[in-house]
């Protein structure tokens, strides 16, 4: 018990410190995206399998309104194809916007603004409340709740509501708190209950009447909580119930309610079945407590201690979460899990009896106001001043949990559960990006959560999110298909305007480039590939081919300094002896961490090797000589033959325009044969018998002929069976050459002429095709039995 009192002391000091320093620290996190009154932050969606997201979000700018830019502390609420966003501005006004979602169209470019149908639904008077009179310090942090055919929102000390689709029929009711308490701020989203029985008096007859209506329940910083029937018949004076923090604690004027109430249909502790459950931040009284409230009667049960000792180490600022879809006998449906301000998490029965707590991630010195997530089997929460993500199985809650730390500014987790796995989405208010786990097993979450840490996908963002993320939301407004969007709000988005950010699913893909795209042989080119979404790629390779003998396989590596993510590798462009541009096709194959593959194709062009101008046509003849001196048939060769290449160039012409010009001599100055070459595989690895590449063999010129010898070492072995002269492949062999031409010509003079001499360089490229028809080398295996058993 000493320990608990110690923590209480620390938390009290902390609270006083934060009260003195800033009001903004009490901006409780309102996560209302699916109007789920269990507040469990989990979307169950069996179709959520293997979805990856575009790294860059689309954004919808909420423009400056009446000259004032817009702020929000609330994640968009999502109902069907609509996003509902509450914003406020420095003019003292709050606004509710409706945005219709749709499938990404051709104008949806990740990272860009999208035009969406944005409708201003309602304006509210927020009042000024910041220490300097500005509204955006803490006011207006409520989000709308849309359920049971009603929209309810609490703004500036009032609860507003109207039937969905009829914003003109809006009504409001003040949230009265403790007398003398001037604070009229809201930091909670209303609960809309299922239809319950309301009571009132018919003013025409004086009779007591009852009727069925949903109730809205929400509290404020005034310490008051209102229970409001959303429908009241005409001529009926309704009986109104409320709760004040002074009702169940002394000296509680400044105890506040920022906890969005959750609906627990399994409670019977307050009379009838069902209760609204919310926490109290006992700023003044120190009596941090959870309240079960019957909306119909105002009956409450205060949950404060267990066996005489306080249950909660810190103030209860966030919403409780109610277990549903439970598979655990020790935590059946209706079990309450609630975090305190320091990220201690408590398990209570549906009727509020203390059962267990987990304080492994608790740090009362670093408030961590965030909601928790329940997936039916696990509790998932952020702790330690928004720096760690934690998980514990609900059937052993309090006996152990897994913690993954080192983050910054993590907000409430959003969980998408597809029946067998969870994907956890976490926005960070402290840094850019959105963290996404790979799917992790729900049956063994704490362990697999640790295994997931190396496979986080970090999505990009405009600026750090200002609220939690809502995951797996939206349907298309035209055909109703699931859009699986992720969405959050950022105050300082594009052009410093507030924006709704939307991440849309993306197919895994890659785009590829080669720079430069046109090169001379021998220069370095870089193969570059950009995978998308980013942070999802495990490996990448590239196959480079000119469709002939030149083939290369590259492994690409991430360029850590590139943004967006880029993988690359250099290679040396091969020389091009073909005389015309040689196009290399580059096929990049990317493999994601989850095993998906994507390919992209690009190309680059290698310029032909420059040879002197002239375009001479030479003749290249190749004799294939067997070792016994026989010649193979013309234009045919076998593996192991010695090849003699003979280049013959006809005598070039003298330059045109000279009088009686005569070539006096011409000789090849340089020539080489560009041919395939095989090198036996002596690497000790693999089945490949030869490594084939093109090489140059220099020719020895003699006048206008040149010769050289090389070995047929690249094809034909093992030979075709039967070895009957079948052409196994045909290779094009090139011989570029240059020629020096000497000439003389007549220069006319008065007496006739004299001979002058000159010379020029020219050249050309000779080619021939060689058929490979087999091998002169064979191999024979011989087996030999050594010992006498069965010996021959």
């Amino acid at each position, binding site marked *: 018990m000493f320990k608990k009192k110690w923590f209480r002391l620390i938390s009290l000091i902390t609270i006083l410190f934060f009260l003195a320093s800033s009001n903004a620290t009490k901006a409780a996190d309102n996560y209302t995206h699916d109007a789920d009154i269990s507040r469990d932050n989990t979307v169950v969606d069996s179709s959520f399998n293997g979805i990856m997201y575009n790294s860059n979000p689309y954004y919808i700018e909420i423009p400056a309104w009446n000259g004032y830019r817009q702020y929000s502390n609330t994640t968009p609420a999502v109902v069907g194809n609509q996003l509902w966003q509450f914003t406020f501005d420095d003019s003292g006004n709050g606004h509710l916007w409706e945005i219709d979602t749709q499938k990404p169209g051709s104008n949806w470019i990740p990272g860009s603004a999208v035009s969406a149908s944005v409708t201003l639904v309602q304006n509210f008077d927020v009042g000024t409340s910041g220490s300097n009179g500005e509204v955006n310090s803490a006011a207006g942090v409520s989000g709308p709740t849309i359920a049971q055919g009603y929209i309810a929102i609490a703004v500036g000390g009032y609860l507003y509501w109207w039937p969905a689709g009829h914003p003109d029929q809006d009504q409001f009711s003040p949230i009265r708190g403790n007398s003398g308490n001037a604070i009229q701020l809201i930091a909670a989203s209303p609960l809309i209950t299922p239809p319950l029985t309301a009571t009132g008096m018919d003013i025409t007859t004086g009779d007591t009447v009852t009727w069925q209506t949903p109730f809205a329940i929400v509290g404020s910083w005034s310490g008051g909580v209102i229970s409001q029937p959303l429908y009241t018949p005409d001529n009926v004076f309704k009986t109104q119930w409320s709760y004040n923090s002074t009702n169940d604690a002394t000296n509680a004027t400044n105890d506040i309610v920022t906890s969005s109430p959750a609906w627990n249909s399994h409670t019977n502790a307050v009379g009838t079945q069902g209760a609204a459950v919310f926490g109290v931040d006992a700023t003044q009284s120190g009596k941090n407590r959870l309240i079960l409230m019957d909306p119909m009667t105002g009956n409450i049960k205060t949950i404060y201690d267990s066996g005489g000792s306080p249950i909660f180490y810190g103030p209860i600022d966030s919403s409780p979460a109610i277990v549903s879809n439970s598979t655990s006998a020790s935590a059946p449906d209706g079990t309450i899990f609630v975090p305190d301000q320091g990220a201690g998490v408590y398990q209570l029965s549906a009727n509020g009896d203390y059962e267990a707590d987990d304080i492994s991630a608790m740090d009362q010195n670093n408030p961590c106001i965030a909601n928790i997530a329940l997936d039916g089997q696990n509790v998932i929460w952020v702790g330690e001043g928004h720096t760690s993500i934690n998980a514990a199985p609900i059937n052993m809650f309090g006996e152990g949990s897994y913690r993954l730390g080192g983050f910054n500014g993590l907000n409430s987790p959003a969980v998408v559960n597809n029946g067998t796995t969870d994907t956890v989405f976490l926005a960070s208010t402290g840094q850019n990006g959105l963290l996404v786990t790979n799917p992790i097993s729900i049956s063994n979450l704490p362990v697999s959560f640790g295994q997931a840490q190396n496979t986080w996908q970090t999505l990009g963002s405009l600026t750090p999110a200002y609220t939690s993320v809502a995951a797996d939301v939206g349907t298309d407004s035209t055909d109703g298909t699931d859009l699986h969007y992720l969405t959050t709000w950022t105050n300082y988005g594009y052009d410093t305007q507030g924006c709704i950010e939307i991440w849309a699913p993306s197919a895994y893909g890659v785009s590829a480039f080669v720079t430069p795209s046109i090169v001379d042989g021998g220069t370095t080119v870089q193969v570059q590939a950009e995978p998308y979404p980013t942070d999802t790629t495990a490996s990448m390779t590239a196959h480079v081919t000119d469709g002939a003998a030149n083939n290369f396989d590259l492994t690409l590596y991430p360029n850590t300094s590139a943004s967006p993510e880029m993988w690359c590798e250099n290679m040396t462009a091969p020389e091009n002896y073909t005389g015309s541009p040689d196009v290399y096709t580059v096929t990049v194959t990317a493999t994601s961490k989850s095993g998906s593959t994507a390919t992209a194709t690009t190309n680059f062009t290698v310029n032909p090797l420059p040879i002197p101008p002239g375009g001479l046509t030479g003749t290249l003849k190749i004799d294939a000589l067997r070792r016994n001196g026989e010649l193979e048939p013309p234009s045919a060769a076998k593996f192991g033959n010695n090849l003699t290449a003979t280049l013959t160039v006809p005598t070039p012409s003298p330059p045109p325009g000279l009088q009686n010009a005569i070539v006096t001599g011409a000789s090849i100055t340089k020539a080489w044969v560009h041919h395939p070459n095989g090198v*036996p595989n002596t690497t*000790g690895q693999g089945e490949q018998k030869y490594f084939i590449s093109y090489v140059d063999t220099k020719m020895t010129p003699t006048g206008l002929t040149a010769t050289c010898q090389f070995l047929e070492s690249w094809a034909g072995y093992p030979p075709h069976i039967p070895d009957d002269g079948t052409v196994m492949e045909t290779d094009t062999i090139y011989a570029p050459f240059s020629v020096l031409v000497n000439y003389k010509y007549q220069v006319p003079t008065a007496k006739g002429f004299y001979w002058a001499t000159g010379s020029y360089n020219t050249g050309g490229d000779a080619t021939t095709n060689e058929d490979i028809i087999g091998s002169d*080398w*064979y*191999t*024979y295996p011989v*087996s030999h*039995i050594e010992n006498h*058993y069965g010996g021959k």
Partner: protein
Amino acid sequence: MRKPILGDDRGGVAVFVLGILLIFFILIVTEAFSYVSYVYRAANDLHNGIGIAGRNALSDFTTVNPADGSVIVTDNNLLEQHFSQYLSNQLQKWPSSCYTITSFQVYSETDRNSQAPVGFSTIVPGTSIYVKMDLILAVMPGLVPETFSHWSIPLTDIISQNSYESATGEWNLVR
């Protein structure tokens, strides 16, 4: 003193008893020889399997250098893996407990003329594989006085790969 005489009236063994002993002895010898025949056939099958597997594996993982005809093993590990696969294909009807490879050594052209491993008598001819294998036979309980239920019979085989140049009739020029 008289010398003791076989078959004398003081208790020599009767002739028919000797005859029974002789028949018994012949039975043992026959049994033993039938086992030898069985072992001979089993070992011969295994030798054949090793030979085929070795020749196939060598064809897959050797190449010839056209300059001198030397035979090059491209991958020792794959050679051994594929040898094992070929062998198990050859010996599909044999339970795998009947044989174990105890040694698999690969020699290259540069090992030519070096001493063969223990258990082999020849010198290494060049690129070749040396296989030692135990043939394990269950011995049926019978007349043979045998305390062990299994026999383990070592087998040794060499499979070598050589090259041949068809134009000149020359074999591997480096050997």
